[in-house]
Structure formats: structure tokens, C-alpha cells
């Protein structure tokens, strides 16, 4: 088992190393490797892969939470709420509707809407920096929408994971309200703890900053809280996000990130690899394609349009707005997490897997060629003379 694990890690490393010049985010590589090598992963390795996969998920959301301070959440909310809401309504709505037309049941449609909603912050962020677009005007809007999505998707994840847990439970309305209440409570409690104990936390971290047990403290706290949240029936990822929020208020990001980053990087790679492994393309391949194509087309177009509208609303010119739209097509980590949370009985696992794979690939291309696509689209569709 250890040998197998070592082999997997080495393969991941070699592949990531070989393609790093190609500007392809490593996420894609890990998923593809998982997909292709899935058959060779035997039972014994699965255990250790699952453990690290869950660790990766938790740390991914922990780091996400670290990026947020209460002040930032408020400033983002003020600036970008319109674009964020448009993105949410269009993307979620289109995903849901397409699922409906494909004859999936309501719960499955809700999950599909959520899975197709959030763009991949990881991919888009990396490409923005690599493509040297950090200073472009449209980048500000893109980042704003991504932040909005981070919060919205985390809450969605919390809600849906609760739904997933009790999918067979009593009357839907009652369970939904109960879940919302739990989430609201957790969110409220975390924010309260964050503002009340932020300075205490800062002192603790300062005091043990150089010690070897800093990692025990940080990782331990994260798992403790996440596990607690999971026992309440809500996704542990949401719990990790909340811990990140709390730690963010301490202001001591540097030592915390430094100590958790190595583990996070490794575990997240395994998380994406495991996702690739879990994609099982069984019999009905044709049925899958029939569902996949419309979903892909509709939701990609949806992102382009919602991005464009949101940017225009924020005052950008037509070309910049189109670039926002084309840059937001990529899906990734959030969609994977939401796909994981979906109960097996809904029959959307394979579809989600292929969808995410396709969207990752197309999304990256769409973003790289956004300038050209934007110019072309403007020429064809926006004939209004006023030169922006």
C-alpha cells in the first residue's frame, strides 16, 4: 500500500513537472491521470487515497476561508453584488433547467445547477497571473465575481451536503429549513468567535510560532471544527472554510499558511487525482454524451453572457466585458466538491465528472484566447458604432 501510494505521488509529480511549461493548471493533469490510471488503483491504496483526499478537501477550503476577513467580505459585497447575483441566477438557473429538460429529478437538477454554477477560482487565478493580465481592468471584476462565488458556493455546498445526507428523510421543506438554520447558526457562531477571539488567537499563534507543534495546533483546530460540522450533517469543507474565517481574523496568516501549505498542496493533488479515479464511465456512454453536450453548451454560453452583463453593469466597455465572460467559463474545484456531495442514487456522478473535465479544458482555452474571442464577438454581434 505504501509502495502504491509512493508510485502515485511520483507519477503525479513527474507529470506535473513535465507539463508546467504548457501553462496548463496542474488540476487538469491530476484529474486526467486519475481517469486514466483509475483501473490500476487497487483496493488497498483506496483507503489511503480517500484519507488524503478528504484532507485535501478540508485544507482547500481552509485556505479559502483564510483569504476572507469580515472587512473584505463587506467590501466585495458592496462593489460586486449585482454582477454576482446575475452570475448566480443565470448559471444556476441554466444548469437546473437543462437538467430538467434532460428528465433528471428535481434534487438532481438542483445539484446540477450548483455543479455548473461556480467557476474555478484556482484555474482562473493561475491563468490571470501567468498570462500577465493581473493589471487589466477586467481582472478586478473577475476577481470580485470569484470571491462572491466562493462565498455563495460554500453556502450552497453546506446546504446541499445537508440535503444529500437526508435525501430520503421527511418532508423536504422541514429538512431544508433545519439545514438552513444549522448553517446560519454555524456561520453566525464563527463570525462571532472570529471577532471576539481574533486577538487571543493572534497571541497564541505568536507565542507558539517557532515551535514544532504549531502544525499540531493549526491542523488540529481545522480538523476538530470540520469534524464537528460534519457530525451535524453539513459538509466538512464548509466547516474548514469557517475555521479559515476565524484564523483570518487573527491577522497571522503567514505562519499559519506556511505550516499548512506543504500538506495542502500534496493532499489537494490527491484530491483531484481521486476525483479522476472516481469517474466511472459505465455502460450508457451514448446517454451520457446526449446529456453532456447540451449541458456543456448551455452553461458555457451562460457564463459568457452573465460575465458580460455583470461587467457592463459595473461600468466596463464591451470588449472588457466580453473578456470577463470568456474568462469565467472554466469550472473546477467547486464543481468537483459539489459533485462529491451528491448522493449516488441521483445518477449524475459520471455526467458531472465528464462535464468538469470538459469544462476545465474548454475553460482554459476560452480564457487564453479571450482577447481574440472578445474582439471577434464584438465585431459579429455588437454592431453599435460607438467605439469603446
Amino acid at each position, binding site marked *: 500500500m505504501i509502495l502504491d501510494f509512493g508510485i502515485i505521488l511520483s507519477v503525479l509529480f513527474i507529470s506535473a513537472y513535465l507539463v508546467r511549461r504548457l501553462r496548463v493548471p496542474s488540476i487538469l493533469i491530476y484529474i486526467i491521470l486519475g481517469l486514466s490510471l483509475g483501473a490500476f488503483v487497487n483496493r488497498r491504496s483506496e483507503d489511503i487515497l480517500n484519507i488524503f483526499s478528504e484532507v485535501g478537501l478540508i485544507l482547500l477550503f481552509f485556505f479559502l476561508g483564510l483569504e476572507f476577513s469580515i472587512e*473584505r467580505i463587506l467590501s466585495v459585497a458592496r462593489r460586486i453584488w449585482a454582477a454576482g447575483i446575475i452570475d448566480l441566477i443565470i448559471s444556476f438557473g441554466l444548469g437546473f433547467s437543462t437538467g430538467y429538460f434532460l428528465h433528471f429529478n428535481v434534487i438532481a437538477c438542483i445539484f446540477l445547477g450548483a455543479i455548473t454554477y461556480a467557476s474555478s477560482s484556482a484555474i482562473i487565478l493561475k491563468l490571470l497571473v501567468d498570462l500577465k493580465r*493581473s493589471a487589466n481592468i477586467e481582472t478586478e471584476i473577475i476577481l470580485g465575481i470569484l470571491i462572491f462565488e466562493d462565498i455563495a458556493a460554500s453556502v450552497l455546498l453546506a446546504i446541499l451536503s445537508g440535503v444529500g445526507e437526508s435525501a430520503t428523510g421527511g418532508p423536504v421543506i422541514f429538512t431544508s429549513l433545519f439545514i438552513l438554520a444549522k448553517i446560519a447558526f454555524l456561520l453566525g457562531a464563527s463570525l462571532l468567535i472570529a471577532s471576539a477571539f481574533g486577538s487571543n488567537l493572534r497571541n497564541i499563534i505568536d507565542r507558539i510560532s517557532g515551535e514544532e507543534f504549531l502544525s499540531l495546533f493549526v491542523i488540529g483546530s481545522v480538523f476538530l471544527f470540520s469534524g464537528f460540522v460534519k457530525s451535524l450533517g453539513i459538509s466538512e469543507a464548509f466547516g474548514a472554510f469557517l475555521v479559515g474565517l476565524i484564523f483570518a481574523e487573527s491577522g497571522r496568516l503567514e505562519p499559519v499558511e506556511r505550516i499548512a501549505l506543504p500538506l495542502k498542496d500534496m493532499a489537494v493533488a490527491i484530491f483531484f487525482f481521486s476525483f479522476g479515479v472516481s469517474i466511472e464511465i459505465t455502460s450508457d456512454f451514448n446517454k451520457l454524451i446526449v446529456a453532456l453536450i447540451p449541458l456543456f453548451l448551455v452553461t458555457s454560453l451562460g457564463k459568457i453572457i452573465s460575465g458580460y452583463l455583470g461587467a457592463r453593469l459595473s461600468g466596463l466597455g464591451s470588449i472588457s466585458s466580453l473578456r470577463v465572460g470568456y474568462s469565467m467559463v472554466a469550472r473546477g474545484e467547486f464543481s468537483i466538491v459539489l459533485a462529491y456531495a451528491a448522493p449516488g442514487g441521483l445518477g449524475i456522478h459520471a455526467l458531472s465528472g465528464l462535464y468538469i473535465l470538459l469544462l476545465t479544458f474548454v475553460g482554459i482555452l476560452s480564457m487564453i484566447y479571450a482577447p481574440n474571442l472578445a474582439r471577434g464577438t464584438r465585431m459579429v454581434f455588437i454592431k453599435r458604432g460607438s467605439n469603446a
Partner: protein
Amino acid sequence: MKLREVDLPGIGKKFTLHTGKGIAISLVVHNTGKREIYLFPRGGEEDASCVIELSDEEARQLGTLLMGAFFTPVVVDEDKINLLLKGLIIEWIELSKNSPAAGKTIKELDIRAKTGASVIAILRNEKDIIPSPSPEEVLKAGDTLIAVGTREQISSLIELVATRPGR
């Protein structure tokens, strides 16, 4: 002159300066410490025409140069020209190893009273700038005094710090 500061969550901070000529210069300071300068000639919706990446060291060096600490050109500014015309100049005076001023404070040397010139800043070790030095500041060999005064006053100051005591 418009200077705009924007938070780029996940990347860092961006500072944009629109020059009088319509060019937009953006400085992105990444969370990782990397600095990048972007030039947008028409300030419009296209990609930057030029991107320069600077290391920490390079950024500081360039910053110091831009600040004018090593070489200040004559500025095109009414008041400053008048100053020049009235005969006031700014001079950089380096204290050699044997300088009698080395090891003494500004107060001890009584620069203002003896020469009439004012030391407005001290450049030390080629990179540290001490603006408006206090009278208790100890001058060291190798320091460069940045002084302002008339030609005669500056000459006096040069003599003061260059000649051996008891001339």
C-alpha cells in the same frame, strides 16, 4: 495626476497611475513579493503593451532612482527656478575618510552658524537616507551631506568638512 489603489484578492495589490500624457502605468505587488510594472499606452481595453517583472532588490533600486536620491534633475517649476535664480543651490557633499567632520554632530560643527548652509538630508551607505537630520546626528566618514544654500555658503561648508582642523 491620478493614483488608484485596488485590492486584487488572491493576487495582491494594484496601483495605477495615469500620467498627464494619457499613459496608464500599473504596479502590481503580488502577495508573493513579486513586483510587476504594466504599461497601457492607450489606457484602454487591450492587454498591456509591456510587462516588466522586478525582484525585491530591483524594485527598491529603481524606486530610489525614481525618487531622485542619486541625481535630481533641474525641475521645471516656477518657485524652484526662482530659487535657483536667487542663487540657492542644492549640493551633494561627500565626507572623505579624513574629514574633520567625521565623528562629530551637526551641532558640534555648528554648520548653520559657521557657513550659512543647511543640511537637509544625509545619504549614508549609498542607500539609507536620513531626512531632516537632528542636530545631534553624528556624521560619519563616507556620508554624503545634501545641503542647500548660496554658492558661497556651500563653498564654506565644503571647506569646513574637507579641511583639516587648525588651518
